[in-house]
């Protein structure tokens, strides 16, 4: 029975858990229930991926109403891969969360914190699973509203402003998206993505369709923090509680990139995109984003903010694949989406462990900690190498495919930008490493010599992600294999 409802249970399980967790007494119970649910969801997502990895598509009709009238969950390799990474990161973040949350969030808010976390998971998984464009908007709102609440729980007062800024920007993004959806519905009379893809080609000349496309693209560019619409992201990541930063950095923007892929390649086709200036614009913004934001990252004094700017640059890489508009490009985007979740998850977990011990995320307060916390330090080094794209790490695989996609089109400028971006990454990763290992403990940080290694509950999830970075640097069957499978389904008509 479970197998028939697999794609749905993935979304409904955390949804059912959220109200239960919200009324549980504060203590360890809400954490235990959420962790249990996230692991079951991860198990279901892995099961789902195995089912669709052979190239077939699962369709689930909500309420028994047949698509395109009813809401349909349509699972192919692309959805399944995104659902796997979202649930996997949640399953690793929650064990890590126990100690970090006790330290950063007041006791009386614990149950509500985990309830919001479950809702955020519901929303992100829902976006990944659904095949209905309006349903996608609903899940987008669920995940966004809960993440505003989660970010505002940060310890510093700036967390409130950061959450408010994200609220305004996110709402504008969601509104733009829904305006686009409304225009599409007015023109085609359908909300089902597969159905839209069939009905749109005859309307490609129509100006309303172009307007709808523009609204949807700008809306999601806001949600995924594409340069120059990224201004909410550094503040949100810096001031949110550590656990929230880890989870959002590794999943929220990735899900938005997936939606972009789905919109560009499935709902609209690439032939349509080529008739608009969107693809050139994407490439231009990505190049500016990669170079500009990497430079910004170098000059940051706060470790979380440094990684946040690096995230904006990395989103540039993901969107490059979409801008190139080829099979290889889309494959590279999907692979980098997966790999970047692994590396940023690992890095933010390591920074979180430092914050847990020192109580600050500013780089100057970390001096000399590398010797006291060797495991955390090693995690930062390996995660950083992956971020740079050194061979033998997951980051290398995604950059390799990106470069291949660029070379395929003889676009040497893009190849150059990817390489320069990697060099800039060396500099900002080095900044963290230098402070941790090579800087003598300053007078202000005398107490750093007494700091102990992070607790085991934090080290284990961190190292699972670090080892995953190495593992997926050698074994690309899951990432590249699934991505190639997914791209064939994403781009109808491509059969290589």
């Amino acid at each position, binding site marked *: 029975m479970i197998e028939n*409802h697999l794609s749905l249970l993935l979304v409904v399980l955390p*949804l*059912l858990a959220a109200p239960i967790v*919200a009324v549980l007494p504060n203590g360890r119970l809400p954490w235990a229930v959420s962790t249990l649910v996230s692991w079951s969801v991860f198990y279901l997502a892995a099961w789902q991926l195995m089912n669709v990895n052979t190239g077939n598509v699962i369709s*689930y*009709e*909500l*309420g*028994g109403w047949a698509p395109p009238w009813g809401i349909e969950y349509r699972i192919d390799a692309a959805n399944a891969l995104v659902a796997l990474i979202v649930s996997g990161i949640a399953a690793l973040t929650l064990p890590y969360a126990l100690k970090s949350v006790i330290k950063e969030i007041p006791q009386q808010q614990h149950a509500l914190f985990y309830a919001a976390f479950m809702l955020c998971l519901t929303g992100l998984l829902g976006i990944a699973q659904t095949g209905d464009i309006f349903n996608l908007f609903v899940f987008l709102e669920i995940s966004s509203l809960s993440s505003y609440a989660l970010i505002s729980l940060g310890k510093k007062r700036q967390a409130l402003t950061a959450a408010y800024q994200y609220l305004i920007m996110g709402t504008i993004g969601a509104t733009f998206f829904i305006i686009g959806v409304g225009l599409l519905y007015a023109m085609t009379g359908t909300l089902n993505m597969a159905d839209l893809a069939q009905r749109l080609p005859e309307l490609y000349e129509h100006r309303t369709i172009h307007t709808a496309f523009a609204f949807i693209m700008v809306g999601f560019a806001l949600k995924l923090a594409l340069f120059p619409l990224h201004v909410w992201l550094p503040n949100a990541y810096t001031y949110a509680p550590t656990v929230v930063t880890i989870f959002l950095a590794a999943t929220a923007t990735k899900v938005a990139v997936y939606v972009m892929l789905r919109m560009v390649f499935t709902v609209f086709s690439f032939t349509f995109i080529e008739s608009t200036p969107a693809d050139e614009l994407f490439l231009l913004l990505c190049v500016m984003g990669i170079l500009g934001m990497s430079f910004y990252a170098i000059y940051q004094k706060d470790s979380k903010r440094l990684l946040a700017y690096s995230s904006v640059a990395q989103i540039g890489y993901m969107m490059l694949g979409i801008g190139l508009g080829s099979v290889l490009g889309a494959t590279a985007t999907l692979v980098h989406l997966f790999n970047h979740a692994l590396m940023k998850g690992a890095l933010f977990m390591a920074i979180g462990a430092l914050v847990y011990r020192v109580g600050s995320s500013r780089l100057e307060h970390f001096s000399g900690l590398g010797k006291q916390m060797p495991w955390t330090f090693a995690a930062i080094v390996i995660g950083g190498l992956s971020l740079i794209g050194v061979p033998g790490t997951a980051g290398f695989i995604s950059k390799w495919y990106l470069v291949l996609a660029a070379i395929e089109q003889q676009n040497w400028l893009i190849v150059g930008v990817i390489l320069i971006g990697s060099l800039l990454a060396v500099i900002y990763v080095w900044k963290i490493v230098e402070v941790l290992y090579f800087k003598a403990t300053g007078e202000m940080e005398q107490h750093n010599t007494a700091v102990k290694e992070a607790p085991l509950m934090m080290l284990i999830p961190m190292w699972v992600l670090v080892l995953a970075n190495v593992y997926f640097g050698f074994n690309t069957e899951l990432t590249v294999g699934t991505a190639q499978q997914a791209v064939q389904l994403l781009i109808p008509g491509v059969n290589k």
Partner: protein
Amino acid sequence: MKHNLILRVVSKFLIPLIILFALYVQFHGDFGPGGGFQAGVIFSAAIILYGLVFGLDKAKRVITPYVLRLLASLGVLIYAGTGAATILLGGNFLQYGVLASSQLAGQHLGILVIELGVGMTVMSVMLIIFFTFAERGQAVLNSKIESERE
């Protein structure tokens, strides 16, 4: 509060009617205009009116914040639980048809039950929002009064 006699009498007269109307909208949502969302808002308006006229503390005694949190969660659980029930009965998620012996009766029952869940959650969340803002306002007011006394 002592002087607003007319306000108090009129509210006491109106509040039961508002609640009655909320219940009407709740249970006629299946065939007429209305439903859980509207009913929830109307119901909470009754309590908010009570709170405005008789004071926040008294309103909180009618429905305590803890009960509100329970109700808000229970509403979501009823909605999602209905979906789970339809799965257990052999249908798809929220396929109301399987809830009763006939398709029509099942659809009818299903929509009434989930609207009840929606009504409960909307009512409680509205009140939670009202209480949260009102509490903050009262705290500011109290501190002002104290500083004036000094």
